[in-house]
């Protein structure tokens, strides 16, 4: 099923090239790593429970446009927003920020593997149980 002969470029390589060519994109991409992980968490939950954005909004006690914003991955969520989602969805979400020079010590290897984003000067781990 894998088109081995096709000439292709991996998405990660394309992303790395864009970050190299555009430092402002790189900074923004790094800054929004928690937003993307939180968005992916809500999307996984929605897929797993076969919910529409409207259904998820009802579960979270927010408006559907608010879910659109949270799923965009373009706005880092406030701590209160994370706590509300954890409370209402019964999930676990972790956010760990450490100096890039030091390996994060407060989160599991599983969390680091699934959600670690290296910044230029800090290491951010954002991961969830979903």
């Amino acid at each position, binding site marked *: 099923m894998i088109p081995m002969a*096709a000439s292709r*470029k*991996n998405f990660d390589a394309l*992303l790395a090239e864009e970050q190299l060519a555009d430092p402002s994109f790189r900074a923004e991409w790094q800054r929004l790593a928690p937003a*993307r992980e939180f968005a992916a968490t809500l999307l996984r939950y929605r897929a797993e429970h076969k919910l529409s954005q409207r259904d998820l909004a009802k579960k979270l006690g927010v408006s559907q446009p608010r879910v659109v914003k949270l799923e965009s*991955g373009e706005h880092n969520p406030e701590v209160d927003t994370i706590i509300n989602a954890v409370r209402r969805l019964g999930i676990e979400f972790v956010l760990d920020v450490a100096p890039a020079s030091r390996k994060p010590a407060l989160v599991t290897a599983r969390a680091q593997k*699934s959600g670690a984003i290296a910044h230029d000067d800090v290491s951010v781990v954002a991961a969830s149980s979903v």
Partner: protein
Amino acid sequence: MGKQPRAWIVDFDSDAVIDFEDVKSRGDRRAVFNVVQKLKDLGPDLPSPHMKSLKGEADLFELRPKQGACEARPIYARFGGRFMVLAVAAKKKDFDRAVAVASDRLSATVDRR
């Protein structure tokens, strides 16, 4: 869901990389990277409105950056545990052509296997 990988492999057909160069605005490029990352994170579980099946094209799907608010549209297909972006429409007016091109590239890709 628990058995699904945490991240999928997403490739761009080399011609789709060239298509993507036509997406000039920084905001649109960011939005495309963002939605492709969602495909990488969610794979076949990525829900609407971030993706959509293409009518009349059983094996092709469109990614909808900014949940449809951005005009750019990567067109992709699944190959087992991997995904391939086959074409990118930079603007709404390019969409039909991009779908046709993606369909041709899909056939060529399958033929090469």
